[in-house]
């Protein structure tokens, strides 16, 4: 029979971390297999086709689409400069009086000219795109014309939710314990360009001060939804984030509202205080789940880069779990039993449950509302 389980978020002091850095379109890879790279190093680049601007030449010259070809002064593939003559008619009575003409409004090239509709497509110059390594590591695979795979050995923390894109910086822990709120007075000028660590909650005023002082990233247990709305200026509808342009990356390790950061996460961040790390806030919760991440590179030898085979996460008696919904959200417990038969919980929902020892009490919790803490 099926075994219900919930894989938890990964928090570990050592992992073989592997990341694909791929171009949106085919281009040039600038590094070779075996190269050692820093997070800011360029690994691949390309240029995206420029925007297309349609111009209906027939309308502009007041002729039929079929006549357009004879009036065109450029053809598909020709390079363009702003103001260049695109088409010109023969003028009144064909003697060149009062000629009408159309000039290019952009730099770029001619994409196509249609005899069916009299439409001319102009394309703006290509847009360069560069992909950086994001982590310190080694290039273990080059995908020709597409990108690379970078690997390293890292301490690694997966968050539950984040906003804004990739950033790097030195880790600085600002709270004494994981249940402390990160208040504005704790943000000082020496936090500039750092990834700062708070405890249970980082409120709006703190975030604003951090942004003002040039903090690159905030790692927090919880955050209020109301504050996220204030920061972004809109309510997050669907959980696809990472594209925001707020200027400071925020990563929540636990969820919304004041929730104590898990001890394991807090202690790991404390252990690596002062180290350079990479982080991002990209979150997607649906097919192809993406969670925000903190990657803290460790010293390693190449032969250490062997990823262990992934194991299934199984709920077992004696295993550690964290409660991920009320009541008891955020609390840690030890599994005491795994009853086979579904039971009714307070909401009368009939579900499979487990019993766990949580802070000295025995609680019955739906299995769907816990996640496993890997040792």
């Amino acid at each position, binding site marked *: *029979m*099926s075994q219900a389980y*919930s894989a938890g978020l990964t928090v570990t002091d050592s992992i073989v971390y592997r990341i694909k850095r791929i171009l949106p379109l085919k281009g040039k890879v600038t590094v070779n297999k075996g190269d050692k790279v820093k997070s800011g190093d360029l690994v691949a680049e390309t240029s995206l*086709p420029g*925007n*297309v*601007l*349609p111009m209906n030449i027939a309308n502009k010259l007041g002729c039929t*689409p079929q006549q357009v070809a004879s009036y065109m002064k450029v053809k598909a593939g020709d390079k363009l400069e702003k103001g260049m003559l695109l088409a010109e008619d023969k003028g009144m009575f064909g003697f060149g009086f009062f000629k009408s003409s159309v000039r290019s409004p952009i730099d770029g090239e001619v*994409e*196509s000219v*249609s005899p*069916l*509709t009299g*439409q001319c*497509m102009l394309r703006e110059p290509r847009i360069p795109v560069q992909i950086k390594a994001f982590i310190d590591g080694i290039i273990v695979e080059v995908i020709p014309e597409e990108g690379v795979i970078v690997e390293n050995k890292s301490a690694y923390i997966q968050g*539950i*939710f984040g906003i804004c894109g990739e950033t790097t910086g030195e880790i600085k822990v600002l709270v004494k314990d994981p249940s402390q709120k990160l208040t504005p007075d704790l943000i000082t000028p020496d936090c500039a360009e750092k990834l700062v660590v708070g405890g249970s909650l980082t409120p709006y005023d703190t975030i604003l001060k951090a942004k003002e002082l040039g903090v690159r990233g905030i790692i927090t247990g919880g955050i*209020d*939804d*109301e504050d*996220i709305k204030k920061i972004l200026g*809109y*309510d*997050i*509808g*669907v*959980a696809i984030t990472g594209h925001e342009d707020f200027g400071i990356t925020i990563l929540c390790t636990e*969820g*919304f*509202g004041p929730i104590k950061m898990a001890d394991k996460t807090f202690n790991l961040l404390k252990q690596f205080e002062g180290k350079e790390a990479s982080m991002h806030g990209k*979150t997607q*919760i*649906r*097919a*192809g789940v993406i969670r925000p991440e903190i990657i803290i590179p460790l010293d390693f030898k190449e032969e250490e880069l062997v990823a262990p085979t*992934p194991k299934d996460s199984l709920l077992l008696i004696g295993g550690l779990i964290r409660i*991920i*919904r*009320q*009541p008891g*959200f955020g609390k840690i417990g030890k599994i005491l039993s795994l009853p086979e038969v579904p039971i*009714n*919980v*307070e*909401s*009368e*929902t*009939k*579900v499979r449950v487990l019993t766990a020892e949580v802070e000295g009490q025995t609680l019955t*919790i*739906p299995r*769907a*509302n816990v996640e496993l803490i890997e040792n």
Partner: protein
Amino acid sequence: MNNQLLKIIATDCGSTTTKSILIEYVDGEYRQTVRGEAPTTVEAPLNDVTRGVVNAVQELEELARLKYNNPNIKFLSDGDEKEIIIPREGDVGVDAYVSTSSAGGGLQMMVTGIVAKMSGESAERAALGAGAIVMDVIASNDKRLDHQKIERIRELRPDMILMAGGTDGADTKHVPEMAELISAADPRPRLGSEYNLPIIFAGADMSQEKVKSILEKRSHLIITDNLRPSMERENLGPARDQIHEIFMEHVMQQAPGYNKLMKWTRVFTEEKKIETVPIMPTPGAMGNIMQTIAKLGEIEVVGVDIGGATTDIFSVFTPEYVFNRTVSANLGMSYSISNVLASAGLPNILRWVPFDINENELRNMIKNKMIRPTTIPALLEELVLEQAIAKEALRLAFIQHKEFAVSLKGVQTQKDISSAFDQQTTGQTIVNMMTLDLLVGSGGVLSHAPRRHQTVMMLIDAFLPEGITRLAVDSIFMMPHLGVLAEIHPEAATEVFNKDCMIALGTCVAPVGKYKPGQISLTAEITLPDGTVFKEEIPTGEMRLLPCELNKNAKAKLTPGKGLDIGAGKGQPIEKELPGGVVGIVLDTRGRQPFVLPTEKEARISSLKKWMKVLNAYPEQILN
């Protein structure tokens, strides 16, 4: 009818779970006997949808062995590369295997037309009816500038594009112009970078050659019959068929493991041949079963499937059993729950909550559900809140459906003196709640509500049925399976639908019209199956629940209050048999057109508690 089919397996490969059911011919009837499920495996690390199918079918196999105490029952072949055994020999194998799929985000399409409200809307209807999510409708008159349209086409990465526009016999420059915009954008398909994007052209016959010359080299172009051959007629069938074919041939081929799965879905025919059965998009199959129910029962039906990410609404209204489907892509109960809050607004959600709650806490609760979508409400308060959110998601999705399910726009009508008074125009909604016979709910929050009474409450509050309407719920979410089964065996699909899938909840009676406070809105004299007679003059603002068990009817004489209507006209009485169900008969005099809740908080909470107590929706402790 194929009488050889004694054992059938059907699966639905959803985004997160693959659900399997076994249908068997037992004692002269088709019944759903066993159900299994397993996580879908379309993504890394397994990247093969058939792994999840094997796991779900393996669970069926184990449960069937237990049920019949027969260790010889076997559906899967031995070895590492397991597959479903067809044909069947005794206990080994099955006679047919069919499947639907919405894994990996389902079928995503972009459609184009000339006039957004005419050919654009017809193209959208064709795509939605085929089971797609429509990412955008690009039309010549949609007020976007050409370069904006090109940018939009480029940024979308649909599975395919459906082009419409122009009536047959007429030449138009707009269709080739749109083809040129698409060609300039050079859109790439969502899955697989190595193949050309399929584009179906179902527009004006005289534009076919021009479109061909523009798009043939850059895409996989398919030309089919015009889906709007004249302003007065839609012809969506050929375009829908092409969508299904391309879904199978191109889109599914790109999804991990589907190559294999497409070879597995087969039926052993009466001619003793094995034939392939196409995989259908899940919503397409749901639409199929809705239409089958409506046609066989000669009734008007509205069905809803509320999932974690999307809410699909299906309707079939006579005459001619016009079918419509809408998908509200961002209204759902987990992944999209936060969007329900953003779209409906906090006050609209709170109006259904019978207690005070801190708004900040509610916002955080909703977001926590979004980021941990598989959690379930263990606390009663959280269940009530989730069901309040569900009511708003359903209400908003139904508004979208009513706006979309309209008569054809742009039809020329002859005006006479009488039409000048009734103000009828083209493009009116065809959803008529008064003539609606059956409202069917499906999806986790409706199918798995701890009390069926809660399902009734959510359906009534969200859809506001008018007059006399039967209510039902999909017992364990098997409508998609039956929809695809209907393709090879409609009788088996209908039999299982009626006996195992659809649970009758009861009947709702609600007078329509302007209510006055203190007025008697409904006089009911109802003889229940056990002979008890219920007789009451029910004032405005009340609800009553009468027990009337499943498969039994109550005899009712219903007289609406002055100026109100329950189907026979204002103030006219109706004598009718009201079908019962697991909940019973609900008499609702809270108002329709308009339905109004008290605006003052204390009065609203007090009314909600009163109605919830009557409906037996929640335990007393939360309603005192």
